């Protein structure tokens, strides 16, 4: 019984350690490049829909600046924010293709 308990506790500790170490792991340049490319691709798609947001461009610029200074954690975080903003602008443009009619004066 105590062996089972010890095993469970050990497993729990191991999981906690794994989880903590993965969230504390520093981002690399490779992580940044992947995150930045995804954000840029989403923003390009928003551009095709003629609906880019200024805040997306600002987040992309902040990501690049952070990467240039070697702060890849911040660079990845800014890239992910840029990607989320770009995706929101794509959603907006797509839903507005019909939704604009609800505002029309008739």
């Amino acid at each position: 019984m105590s062996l089972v308990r010890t095993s469970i506790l050990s497993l729990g500790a191991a999981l906690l350690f794994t989880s903590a170490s993965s969230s504390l792991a520093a981002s690399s340049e490779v992580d940044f490049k992947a995150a930045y490319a995804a954000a840029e691709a989403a923003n390009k798609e928003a551009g095709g829909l003629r609906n880019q947001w200024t805040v997306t461009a600002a987040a992309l610029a902040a990501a690049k600046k952070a990467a240039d200074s070697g702060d890849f954690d911040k660079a990845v975080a800014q890239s992910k924010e840029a990607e989320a903003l770009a995706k929101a602008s794509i959603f907006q443009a797509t839903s507005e293709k019909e939704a604009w009619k609800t505002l029309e004066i008739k």
Partner: protein
Amino acid sequence: MNVRSAIHLALGLVALAALVAGVPPGLAADTPDPVADARAFQKFFTDKFPKVTLQDFVNGPYSMNEDMHRQWEEKEQFPPYEFALDMGKEMFSKPFTNGKSYADCFPNQGIGIRQNYPYFDEKEGKVVTLELALNRCREANGEPPFSYVKDEMAALTAYMAFTSRGKPFDIKIPNDPRALEAYQNGKRYFYTRRGQLNFSCATCHVQSPGERIRAEVLAPALGILNAMPIYRSEWSGMGTISRRFTTCNSQIRGVPLNPQDDEYRDLEYYLSYVSNGLPISGPGARP
């Protein structure tokens, strides 16, 4: 079933589908009707602001508030756009290097024609705004184009608007499906939400005219272009229609398009058309 009865059955189904849809074949249910749109647009504002006369909507925020209206009347004694007007008049009359001038590019030598812009050019298949026509005139005469958002263009359009003061907007939509499409595109742009703030042009200028946004009183969309170009105290200078459109987009955290992109030309076409009958009052002054 033989071939003949199969054909009859197919034709019957097509006719039934058309009946169910309730519209004649080839005509969409939401075909634009600019005349009805303009009527509804003007009625919306006159119903919303029963004390404001139709003609007074061209005075923007000054038509919405008695105190501001008084301030505007005082401002008009020494209008802040006067220097631009003088500059525009001088620029307009000065010949290009080749000896020709702006007058050679426009009907009636460019005097008293503002109310007819923008127009739909059936040859090009697109909307042509006054700002665009001015730059095309310059380029056709070997001169470099002006920036669409800076003082020179504002001065030229200020002078041309001044020569049209009091003349009602008279925007035409020719019997050309491309013109109707441009009008409809402009309408869609006007009502489409964009930018991180999720605002459309209508959010401010249809839903909230007369309301304050920070220290400013929002102008009604009806007559909003009749006063262009404008001197804005906020800008400490003159602004063209292009400057107004791009700035609006930035303010709602949207990346502006290039001045005179099709969307902006179509938007100007729509907004001008629904203000048909209201007088040109430009150049104007705004807080």
